């Protein structure tokens, strides 16, 4: 498709790519610089601060007015729990759809496909009212609780991931479990001991994608959590910087860098794996 370009053509290509790189990194460089800049004001920012300092980072972990560690902890708890439970429940469901032949299987698969088309946040009013009602009956599972939020995320994660994993399970030959079944293992034992270890790559993909998706979710968390101690990072950071760009830009930048680094540290080394999952039919959320 490509012929050897001339010397000039090659330069043009590199220049074009570098324009793209500058576009890609422009905001990242600015907040990186702001996070080391002693001033907290957007206006006084230079790309290369005169007296770089780690004060903003220090403040994040020491200033009680910035509950950043709390938000990160909340986010890790919510995203981690959601991701782990999603992997397990979806693997169970996908295994049943892949291996068992039962009445309603086709209808089940079809409805799964249809339900996962519905963006869960469209039902935000209903979910909000539902969680308020649950709160009256089971206080720890309702509105403004992390288990309640996790429950909502789990519901939204089931459709697509079950469907996605089923496709992978279909590619694992049945013969691998058959000898175990002949030896008297239950299908559940065969699933747990034989199929799951073989499916490790897809489990990892779903775990990571679900973690990242939940980590970045804003709408439902902002509706269902109240009070700064309960916030996830997404809700907390917005609350922190809203209408305060002139006062909190430095601390915000440090928090943004740390919050993004966490995901970048997962994403960049595993980009091949994650992208293969994401472009397998999904769009990034």
């Amino acid at each position, binding site marked *: *498709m*490509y012929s050897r*370009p001339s010397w000039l053509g090659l330069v043009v*290509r590199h220049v074009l*790519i570098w324009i*793209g*790189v500058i576009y*890609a990194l*422009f*905001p*990242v460089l*600015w*907040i990186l610089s702001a996070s080391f800049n002693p001033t907290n004001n*957007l*206006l006084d920012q230079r790309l290369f601060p005169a007296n770089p300092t780690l004060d903003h980072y220090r403040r994040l972990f020491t200033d009680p007015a910035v509950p950043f560690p709390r938000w990160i902890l909340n986010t890790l708890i919510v995203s981690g729990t959601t991701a782990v439970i999603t992997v397990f429940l979806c693997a169970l*469901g996908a295994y*049943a759809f892949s291996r*068992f032949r039962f009445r309603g299987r086709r209808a*089940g698969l079809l409805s799964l496909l249809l*339900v996962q*088309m*519905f*963006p*869960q946040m*469209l*039902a*935000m*009013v*209903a*979910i909000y*009212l539902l969680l308020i*009602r649950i709160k009256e*009956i089971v206080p720890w599972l309702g509105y403004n609780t992390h288990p309640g939020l996790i*429950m*909502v995320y789990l519901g*939204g994660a*089931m*459709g697509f991931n*079950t469907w996605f994993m089923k496709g992978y399970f279909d590619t694992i030959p049945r013969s691998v479990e058959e000898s175990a079944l002949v030896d008297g293992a239950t*299908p559940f034992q065969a*699933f747990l001991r034989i199929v799951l270890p073989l499916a490790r790559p897809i489990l990892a993909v779903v775990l990571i994608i679900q973690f990242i998706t939940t980590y*970045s979710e804003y*709408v439902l968390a902002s509706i269902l959590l109240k009070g700064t101690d309960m916030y996830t990072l*997404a809700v907390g*950071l*917005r609350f922190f*910087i809203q209408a305060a*760009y*002139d006062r909190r*830009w430095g601390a915000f*930048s440090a928090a*943004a860098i740390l919050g993004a680094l966490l*995901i970048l540290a997962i*994403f*960049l080394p595993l*980009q091949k794996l994650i992208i293969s999952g*994401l*472009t397998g039919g999904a*769009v*990034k959320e």
Partner: protein
Amino acid sequence: MNGGSLLAQGLKYGLVALLDAVVVWAAMALLLRGDYLMVALLGVAALLLNFLVLSRRAYPLRFLLPGLVFLVAMVVYPIGYTISVSLTNLQTGNLLTKAQVIAQLEGRYYLPPAPETFTFWAFRNAQGDLRVILTARDGRTFISRGNELVPVDLSGPRYVRGAGGTVTGFDGYTRLTLPEIYQSLRALEGLDLVLGDEHVRLTSVREFGTYLRKYSYVPDQDAVVDLETNVTYYAREGSFTSPDGMRIEPGFQIYVGFRNYLDVLTHPGIRSDFARVFGWTVVWSFLTVFFSFWVGLGLAYLLNDPYVRGRFAYRSLLIVPYAMPAFISALVWAGLFNADLGVINRILGELFGTKVRWLQDPMWARAALIFINVWLTYPYMMIVSLGALQSVSREMYEAARVDGATGWQRFWTITMPLLWVSVAPLLIGSFAFTFNNFTIIWLVTAGRPAVLGAATPAGATDILISWTYRLAFEGDRGNQLGLASAVSILIFIIIAAISGVNFRFTRALEDVSRGV
């Protein structure tokens, strides 16, 4: 599928029995609250669970059910609930059920023009129980017992007399001083004592008075009678309304059929908001996909060139916007675009000596949003295009080169048609996703700037989903949950239509590619 050991069997049935017991207990609690829908749901769930554990035919369901529970509870049920709410008038002022409103109204009292008044002494015992002794104008005395007032003779030996003949205590109760009365004012106000058919409540710090019931519900007329003025308020369109149009607050929820949908489509103010928001949503999604696709494809084309060195490093840098959590990027960009403080205006100012009112002027705010979202989306397009480019077979190019086609011709006649087949469904998917990309809109502009004279809180950069959010949760104009739900359903219909087109398109494109 075999039974397992006796112990396992016993454990299994034991757990089912325990679970059923918990369900029965929960059902009783719900029944007492009158929450029949939840009782029904709980019953169905419990039956299913028993069937699941006890029947062999349900074996596959044991694998499916755990996930299914969450899917049904948090997606399927909310869809149904959204539809149901969209058919009601649920909004600020109509949040309660009719029964709740009637109960609230029947608990209201009014002070008649010439009430009977009582002076009182309040008493408290060690447990903190509060009792009062009232003295009427004519000298009759009453003591509270629970919610009732009963006549009492204070001359008995139970009552300890202090100076001036006042009672200072009885049965372990001691009289409250005036400061203590002030401290317990809330508890005293809460006292609703019944004397015959009158209610006696606190009227001032020194007195109790007789109150009369204000409203009475008449079931066979479905109306509330104001016992003070004798006006009858009939239940009409979600509130109790008098013949001359006076309403009692609060109203209650009723089903209004398709009125919310009709409002969106025909109510002059709401319709024009809807049309404006819908138009911008389409423009926003289309331009985002359009620009990010071409930027992404261009970079992918450059990165795919085997003669360009350092492609892996470039790729990792170019992918950074995709790997950053979107909410962080959105907040950062909002800061950079800040009109007074932002870096972008500073750069523009130094280069051209001018400033742009980003995020405050409707058109510039829209331009900034699209710029930001292209930044967020192009890496996805780049990755997708890279994959598609790499799958185009080399022989095709060789053949074209032999035929003497130029690079440009090869791109348009070979690369693009083949690329299109694999990328088009993803573009439509991306369009549908951007259509509902609440996070970016909300974190950058929150739908603002506001539009003057809009009938609903619909700003210049609101897309349908953020408009829904504001209808439902933005406080200053009340929470219009019914209308918001109706808009949600409309969005879903649009998204379903796009996905439907996508399915057909995919099939059509597959046919096309088979023809090639």
